[in-house]
């Protein structure tokens, strides 16, 4: 019985206070920890998902850019092709124009006569065969018959009397709508020289294509070598 009632009460009060204080401190500790873990967990989840989202949208945005570049490239190509096609069309038109004008030329008797004579001579010189057949348009047969003798003389003169026989094909003819000229055959038709106006046009047109292109389209800026 050393302690008085008052002392006991006091001590008990103190102990109760202590218990309450401890509890309060523990609660504070728990709440602090709770906040901390809340933040950590939230941060973790957010940043984890953020990375995925950023990756996803970055890729999609790159796709848009890619599409834009592809479209640009396609447009440039299509444009280039259109222009090239147009150029080619003009070249072909020119060739057709030339053919038409040459057809008309065939109607000018004097000019056409000279041309035909030269074509026959050229053909004979090329072939250098003993037996030659000439095929021409139906309407040109008479003219060709007229020109052959002189041509043969010329041939014999230049080649110093080489024997030659020239026939005119009266069974097969060049089409009536062709621009004129002749075809020469030798060795029973095995050797053929195509000296028609169309054939000459094709040959010459191809040979001067570079000149045509330059006149129509200008000098090519991309060309490096000119010799």
């Amino acid at each position, binding site marked *: 019985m050393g302690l008085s009632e008052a002392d006991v009460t006091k001590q*008990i009060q103190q102990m109760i206070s202590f218990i309450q204080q401890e509890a309060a401190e523990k609660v504070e500790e728990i709440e602090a920890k709770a906040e901390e873990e809340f933040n950590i967990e939230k941060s973790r989840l957010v940043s984890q998902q953020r990375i995925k989202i950023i990756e996803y*949208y970055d890729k999609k945005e790159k796709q848009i850019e890619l599409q834009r570049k592809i479209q640009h490239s396609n447009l440039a190509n299509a444009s280039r092709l259109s222009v090239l096609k147009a150029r080619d069309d003009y070249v072909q*038109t020119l060739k057709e124009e030339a053919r038409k004008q040459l057809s008309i030329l065939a109607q000018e008797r004097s000019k056409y006569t000279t041309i035909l004579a030269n074509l026959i001579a050229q053909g004979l*010189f090329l072939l250098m065969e003993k037996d030659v057949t000439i095929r021409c348009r139906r309407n040109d047969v008479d003219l060709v018959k007229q020109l052959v003798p002189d041509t043969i003389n010329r041939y014999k003169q230049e080649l110093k*009397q080489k024997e030659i026989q020239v026939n005119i094909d009266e069974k097969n003819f060049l089409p009536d709508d062709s621009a004129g000229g002749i075809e020469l055959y030798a060795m029973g038709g095995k050797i053929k020289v195509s000296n028609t106006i169309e054939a000459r046009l094709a040959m010459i047109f191809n040979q001067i294509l570079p000149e045509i292109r330059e006149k129509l389209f200008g000098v090519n800026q991309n060309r490096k070598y000119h010799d």
Partner: protein
Amino acid sequence: MLQSRGVSDLLAAEKKAQEIIEEARKRKNKRIKDAQNEAKHEIEQFKGERERRYKGLEQQQMGNRTQMTEESNKETQTQIAALKSQYDTNKQDLLQRIITLVCDIKPETHINARLE
């Protein structure tokens, strides 16, 4: 009697203490669970922003697309029109040249032809 009252008071205090600590723990667990919901909310918001941004770019690109096509076509037409004027200017000269060349026939003997 005094002692039992004192002890029961202590026991009561102890019990109360346990209760509030237990409640604190429960609140803590709830808080941590809340983290998931709040995180989800924030992420949705972020995603929404990026989606808006992306859609904006997509729209812009659509607009550009039509514009690009129009410009390209216009440019092409200009170039093709230029071709026509070039053709018309040079046509006659070129035709003249072609016809001259076609009609200029030089029958020649072959340089290797043997002459008896």
